[in-house]
Structures are given as structure tokens and as C-alpha cells.
């Protein structure tokens, strides 16, 4: 399973994708808030968001999985 991962430590400010949504590579699935910056968490590959793994307001560490991307179903 492919994951969209946090590239930096931060607070999950907004989840912008819903489970089942199609995504293209580079699309944001969530936005972290770190150092007053809005840092997108992007899908590494095209597919569907099969599962969201965090809640808004949650603190995540660098490398933490934020969403599962199912790449077997075309976007």
C-alpha cells in the first residue's frame, strides 16, 4: 500500500480529501500547519484515497503516514 506521508513535523490543520476520492500524483490530501506555514501532504502517485489515517488537530511526525493511496484503481 502506498502512503501519502508528512514531510515535516506538524499539526494536521485540514484534511482536504475524502476516502474514495480520486487523486493525481502531487494532489494534496491534507494540509499541515508548521511554523505558521501551510504544508501540503501530497499523494505520491495517482489513485484513490482508500483510508485517511489522521484526524484534524493531530500532531504528526516527519514520515508519518497520513493517508493510504490505492494506486490499482485508476484516478
Amino acid at each position, binding site marked *: 500500500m502506498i502512503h501519502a506521508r508528512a514531510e515535516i*513535523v506538524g499539526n494536521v490543520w485540514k484534511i482536504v480529501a475524502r476516502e474514495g476520492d480520486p487523486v493525481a500524483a502531487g494532489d494534496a490530501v491534507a494540509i499541515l500547519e508548521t511554523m*505558521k506555514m501551510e*504544508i501540503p501532504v501530497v499523494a505520491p502517485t495517482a489513485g484513490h484515497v482508500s483510508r485517511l489515517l489522521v484526524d484534524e488537530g493531530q500532531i504528526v511526525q516527519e514520515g508519518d503516514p497520513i493517508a493510504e493511496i490505492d494506486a490499482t484503481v485508476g484516478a
Partner: protein
Amino acid sequence: MFRSDAVSEVEQLPDHRTRLEDRRQERFRRVEPRGKRVHTARERAEMLVDAGSFVETTPLRAAHGGGSGVVTGWGLIDGRPVVIASHDAAVASGAIGEVMADAIMDAQRLAIRRGYPIVYINDSGGARVPDGILALHGCGGIFALNVEAQRHIPQISLILGPCAGAAAYSPALTDWTIMVKGQGHMFLTGPDIVKAATGEDVTADEIGGSRLHTETSGVAHLEVESEQEALESARLLLSFLPSRVGGEQRIGDPVPANPRAVDALPALVPEKASVVFDMNQLIDGVLDNGARLELMPRHAGSILTLFGRLDGRPVGVVANQPACRGGILDAKSSVKLARFVEFCGRFGLPILTFVDVPGFLPGTVEEGRGVITHGAKVLKAYVDAASPKLTVVVRKAYGGAYIAMGAKSLGADMTWAWSNAEIAVMGPGGAVALLHRRALAAAEDPTALRDELAAEYRENVARPYVAAEAGIVDDVIFPEETRGRMADALRMLTHSEGGPR
């Protein structure tokens, strides 16, 4: 008597010729490519330089009844001499023995003595075991000359095969390392030894492939798809550099910036300081619309480091990249930044710094990585760099990170701020929380008060005019003026009778 001797020497000549031709033929047979390799060691050297310009030095040098294990020589790149040492994997897998080390050291000494860049084409299994400690002694000698060369000439390492054990340290002592994907590997201990020592089961790609070294470790600075691309990248890299420390800069014809990128500049940076944008587009609106080379594009991506030109003059560009990790500074990006600035300073390349930095990333992870030590390397690199230093704050510059991004206090020759920039000891959020703690605690609507106080802070404290009045930025400018201001400053700063200082 005299006459008869002369006759006998002439009679021997055809013999000498045959013997020499035999040796040469034998030599060319030895360098057949093997395995995944596309080209022989000699072909690689020939392809690196201008067509027909490669001359091999000591082509008949031999060890163990075979070749020395390295093709050394010189040639021209864009008409300028370079020295080359190309490992010959067809001789004992390119393992470095006593004779091979001597040949490489001779090439290094030639390059240092004459002030020519040197390109090492690495393809070596490590130290040549039958040569025992003499092989290690030779490797150490190469390292010592790598260090000596740092003071004089550019050194570029291409990794076109394995570069294992002792061999891996030489590239790490050179300026820039380029790896071919799936073909170049660098590690101190290969998969077999790792398995025997710790039981860890790894592939060569996992323990020393180009992805590991250009993304995670930062050991290599560019990943390319083929041998051909590696050689072309080395030529491109050298096109931005003088042949030696103190050498003449390679000034080309001035080329205007991409007009569309210039037009886009005023609206490029989002007004809201928290929204990210792509710094590459901003740089496009300043530099000449021509050749660029970004180094370490996938390692510590919150900092961009690249070579380009401004009005034809080669420059090193350093910038925060808000599109990656918000453009923060941390331990890794500090090391990347410091190394690049140090290099530019050493070779007289003007350093253009574009600042939009939220700060140093706080937290236990970063402190544990030694961000203080690595951040200090950035400060030292800027202070030490003797080349012209120009800095422009395009949006925000807070705290210690403001200083680290080429501030006036570190010796920047000229600093500017775009008119919407914020320069302050802290960002508005943090400053308001600290300065108005009691008022916020007592407020009926703390969020509204915080927003109001933050707006006030932005207006009264963080405005670039505060910095300009204090003289720590030279001027407040419009985005579209940036190129002209920088070009004017460079003309002034590089003008010196009797050559650059």
C-alpha cells in the same frame, strides 16, 4: 666506429615500433567494457572532453603484468584544459593498487601544479588486496592530494560503477559527485560483508545506490540516467567554474530573464505568509534565461542551491523553497547550504540569496541532529565567503534564520527587501503570544485580540522599512527591480583594477 653504431640503431628501429604497437594494442584490449558498463575507461575519458582532445599520460604504465587500472590524461572542455583519472574496471575490477594509486596521484599533482580542474571517473571495487598495505598507503595518498587540491582547483567525481571501501572516500573529499542510476554505487561495506557482519540483508542499491545518496544521505549531489548524461553534467558544471581558485570567471553573453517570468514576479508571492509558492519561478524572473544546474535537487529540498548566470556572469544561487517543507532551515538543509556557499566563496562565484524563511525547525529531533552545529556552519560559510554576496528578502525572514540567510551582519555586500517583506526577531504569532501574554489571557475574545495585535505587529515592527531605516537592508524594492539591482551591484563589486580581490 661512430658511423657503424648509428647504422645499427637505425636498423633496430622497426623492432622498437613493433614492440610499442604491441604494447598499445594489448592496452586497448584490456579496456573492453564488462557487465552493465557501456563504455571503456578510455572511451569515457575521450567522451568527456572536446572531440579528439584527449591525450593519455603514462599509457604504458603497468602492474602485475597488466594495466595500471586507471586511464589518466588531459583534454579540453570548451577549449579549457582538464585532467582526468578514469578507473579501468577491466583491470582487477578497478581495484586500487600501489601502481594505480601512483598514476592517480600523478594526475592530481599535474592538475594542482597547472591549475586545471580534475574529473575522477570512479569504477572501483576498493583497495587491491594483493598489494596489501601498500594499496592502503596509496589510497591515503590520493585522499591527501584530494584535500590539497581543494585549495586550488575544482574536483568532480563521477560514479559510473562500484565505488567501494577506501575508494568511496575520495569522492567525498571532492566538490561535487554525480551518480549514474542503477550503475553507480558507493558504500564502505558492500552487501556481502554487511550480511556477514550484522546479518542485515541488503541490495547494492539499498546500501549505496544513487537514490539513497542523492535523497537521504547527501553523499552525492546529482543522479543521472546514463554514463553519457554523467559526462555531460560534468561539462555543464565546469562551464560555470573558473579553472582554479583565483582564476578568471567564465563570463558569457548577457541574456535577459525569461520575460514571462519577469511579468509574473509582482504577483508571484502569495500575500498570506503561510501560503507556499515555487521559488524556482521567482529565480526565473531574475537570472539569465539560459543554462542552470541545480545541485542536490532531492536532498534537503527546503533549500535550493543552483548555478546560473546573471548578465552573463556565473553565479551561485541559494534560496529557501517554500514549496518543500515550507522553506525551513534544519540540520540537513544547513549542511547543504553551508557547503554550497563555501564552494562559491572559494571559487569567487557571487552568491545570490533569496530569502523566504519561517525559521529554524524547532523540536527535539532537530536539536538531536545537532542543528546548532550545522546552523553555525552556515554562518561561518557566509562570513568566510570572499565573493560578492547579494541578499534579497522576498517575503519573510524571522529570527536566527534571518541571520543565517546571508544577512548584512554576515557580510552581505548589498541586501534588499521586497516591499511586502516581513523581517523580525520572531513571526507575528509567536511575538504577540510572548509580548501580550497577560492581555491575551484576560481577553474575552483572545483570537480576535491576537489577530488584531498580529496585524499591528506586522505594520509597526516587521515592515521592511524598519529594517531599511536601521540600515540592515540597503533598500526596499519592487520585485521586478530585483534583476537590475543585482546586476548593477555585481558590476560594481566585480570591478577591480588588477583583477578580483
